[in-house]
């Protein structure tokens, strides 16, 4: 729902890092987005294309690595990876005592600049 403000943060961090590295154009940006992060990749890409106009990222493409939700069950001790966005109980033993390991990521991994 707030993909536009996330897109602005991505732009700000990318421009900042590009300048710091001594370059003036961003060609591509790679993001890591967890499936349970609440961010829809398509909406984020749409928003990014809108905010990048007239910046050093105006020619930049964005690729998104989607990270599935995974966790470790405190009852049966098994690690699990699921296609679901939200986990209500351990898929192995149905216990509710588990810790989520991945799926909430919202990160910039790297980018190509020139």
């Amino acid at each position, binding site marked *: 729902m*707030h993909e536009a403000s*996330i897109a602005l*943060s991505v732009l700000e961090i990318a421009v900042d890092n590009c300048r710091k*590295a001594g*370059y003036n154009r961003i060609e591509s940006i790679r993001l890591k987005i967890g499936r349970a992060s609440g961010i829809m990749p398509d909406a984020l890409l749409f928003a990014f294309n809108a905010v990048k106009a007239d910046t050093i990222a105006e020619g930049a493409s964005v690729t998104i690595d989607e990270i599935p939700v995974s966790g470790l069950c405190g009852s049966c001790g098994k690690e699990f990876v699921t296609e679901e966005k939200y986990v209500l109980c351990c898929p192995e033993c149905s216990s509710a005592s588990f810790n989520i390991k991945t799926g909430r990521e919202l*990160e*910039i991994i790297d980018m*190509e600049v*020139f």
Partner: protein
Amino acid sequence: MKVKVVTRILEANDRIAAENRRLFDEAGVYVINLMSGPGAGKTSLLERTIKELSGKIKTAVIEGDIAGAADAERIGSLGVPVIQINTGGACHLDANMINEVLESLPLKETDLLFVENVGNLVCPAEFNIGEDMKAMILSITEGDDKPLKYPLMFQESSALLLNKIDLLPYTNVSVKKIRKDAMSLNPALRIFEVSCKTGKGIAEWADWLTKKVKS
């Protein structure tokens, strides 16, 4: 050339949230981020709670709304410090919006600061503002399917207030289902059944809050 970035996209927000946290700790203020969908009763709960705590705990309020100052006027009439933030369209409060108004609040003379977030069951749960605790309201008229439809807020909150409980006889809502689903999402969740209209359950919630603030 490839540049490694490896930065959390919300890093700027987290940094400002940590700064807010420091200011709150310095002033000895306990901060609650109060969230719910629109119309669940956030302002009504604050009115009831502030009256209940009056004379025991010094409260202040930050009101977040997309537009208007109606909520701040309601709270202001109780005689507690209140600041209205208009997000101008944004669906949530973030750490920076809070940071900008902190100097207008008498933090040192405040024990408990309520931040009433924008009415929205989704986005506010994503942004830390430097609070001690997130609390949420679900009014029972919203339906008993909400925990499983909007899980993040239920997972992030320490307390869930089931408001408008006086209307239960007129609905087909199952409080048992809400409790079961919410607890499966967040086994540590503390649930209060309240009615801001009749005052039911408010004293119990206020007692629990008082213990949190004084501990």
